[in-house]
């Protein structure tokens, strides 16, 4: 059924259109969120660089202190994983890539006989690992969209105490690093134990001046004591900010692709819809013309199809509107009309009749004038022959009679009686 086809297509187009509206809105929202997240990450940068510079100062001051957060173990028995994902989906491969690389890491560690502790941030990670029966040590949600420092503090404290209590000997941080708007990549970083101070200092700005001798208050150890937990917090915070910027960038890209796909789908479906509609119109016209042809004969052709074709052609032309469709209608009516119109023009009342000529003169061989309104005919010997304007010409009175015309009463009496 062509009509059913059209209805189905129309429904699909409108459903794709509303999906497109949603994905477009999400794309725009994500685009502004990325910018905000980047600004937040930039605003947070001074703190961590200053923090690194304090560590440089400490290293320059020659502090060789030990701290539980610096504890390096020879044999690692348990590894902690901090996995940062988003709470919501529709972010392309953002979540799955982080989760997959983390799970690979966990499995690799398990084959080496190491245990694991999972600290999960974001619903997606929780759903994944809970479904696979992993044991989850801690879980947080609602902080990945716009992470605050307090969120980072909360997680960092849990992770740090796990490490200090020797529940884990190493902590690995898995998240998506924000390199630029176009590039984000999965990062697996060793989070704890912290690298020795010297290493951190070297990785920092590198401007550590060994000559400056710092005073420390209360003491280098005292400063370190309060510095390290904050350093852990700040590192986790910057990871959270990075992850959030990556999430929004990924979502923007995914939604852009979805919107583009929807657009393409709509174009294709609209094309199919137009074709279905044209097919339906063509089929209908073919049916009418076919029916008319089947009826056959001059009368049939003259009476039925002319009006039917004309009215249906007009109706379809109005309904179709599309250029191609009305062109098809025109072509169809043009092909159906000629036989009827030509006959009408040449012999409006069948064989032996003739249409009027433009100058109202008698066609060659036709002398009888016919009045189509009164259905009377006039021979040349009629009194009114001269004043009568012929609406049709006949060659003989017999033909006029055959076409249903009667002799006008203006002829000589003998003729009338005959």
């Amino acid at each position: 059924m062509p009509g059913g086809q059209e209805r189905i297509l129309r429904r699909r187009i409108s459903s794709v259109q509303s999906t497109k509206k949603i994905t477009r809105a999400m794309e725009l929202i994500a685009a502004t969120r990325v910018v905000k997240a980047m600004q937040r990450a930039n605003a947070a940068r001074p703190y961590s660089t200053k923090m690194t510079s304090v560590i440089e100062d400490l290293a320059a001051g020659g502090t060789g202190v030990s701290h539980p957060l610096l504890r390096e173990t020879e044999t690692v028995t348990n590894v902690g994983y901090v996995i940062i994902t988003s709470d919501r989906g529709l972010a392309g491969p953002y979540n799955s890539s982080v989760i997959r690389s983390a799970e690979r890491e966990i499995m690799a560690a398990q084959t080496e006989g190491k245990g694991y502790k999972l600290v999960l941030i974001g619903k997606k990670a929780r759903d994944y690992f809970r479904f696979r029966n992993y044991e989850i040590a801690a879980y947080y949600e609602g902080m990945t969209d716009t992470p605050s420092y307090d969120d980072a503090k909360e997680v960092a404290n849990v992770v740090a105490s796990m490490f200090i209590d020797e529940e884990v000997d190493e902590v690995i941080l898995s998240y998506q690093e924000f390199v630029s708007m176009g590039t984000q990549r999965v990062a697996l970083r060793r989070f704890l134990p912290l690298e020795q101070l010297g290493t951190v200092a070297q990785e920092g700005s590198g401007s550590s001046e060994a000559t400056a001798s710092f005073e420390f208050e209360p003491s280098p150890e005292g400063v370190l004591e309060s510095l390290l937990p904050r350093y852990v917090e700040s590192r986790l915070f910057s990871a959270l900010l990075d992850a959030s910027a990556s999430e929004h960038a990924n979502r923007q890209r995914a939604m852009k692709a979805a919107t583009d796909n929807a657009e393409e789908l709509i174009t294709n479906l609209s094309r199919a819809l137009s074709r279905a509609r044209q097919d339906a119109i063509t089929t209908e016209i073919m049916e009418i013309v076919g029916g008319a042809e089947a009826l056959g004969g001059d009368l049939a052709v003259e009476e039925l199809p002319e009006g039917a074709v004309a009215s249906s052609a007009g109706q379809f032309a109005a309904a179709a509107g599309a250029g191609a469709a009305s062109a098809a209608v025109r072509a169809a009516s043009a092909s159906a009309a000629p036989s009827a119109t030509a006959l009408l023009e040449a012999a409006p009342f069948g064989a032996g009749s003739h249409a009027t000529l433009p100058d109202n003169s008698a066609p060659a061989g036709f002398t009888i004038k016919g009045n189509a309104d009164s259905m009377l005919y006039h021979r040349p010997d009629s009194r009114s022959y001269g004043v009568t304007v012929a609406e049709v010409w006949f060659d003989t009175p017999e033909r006029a009679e055959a076409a249903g015309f009667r002799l006008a009463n203006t002829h000589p009496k003998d003729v009338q009686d005959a």
Partner: protein
Amino acid sequence: MAMTVELVSPETILWSGEATQVVARTLDGDIAFLDNHAPFVGALDIAEVRIWADADEPVALAVHGGFVEVSHNSVTILSDVAEFSGDIDAERASTAADRAGEALRSDGDDDEAKAALKRATVRLAVAGS
């Protein structure tokens, strides 16, 4: 030449500019920084930090722990939480102080209540100044 001062929290730079004097309290006690102070790193107590910019009236902030680093004639204060005197809700601080005081009366060794009391007291002091 005045020294440059930056007060940085994890989420943003709270204050930056030139100042003639900065007073802070480390775990060992109050310390004032003037122009060309010797290189210094200190852990801050929960206390008030005052920064004298060009004006006579100092900028006062309640700083809840952190660090101060002085080098190359610039003072950098790092703090998780720092509040300007204008941003402090004195009413909330005083109810917090009451609550913490009550908790301390029932349990004199409650470290959390001690810290809360200290924070509230500092807030009130800064807001009042």
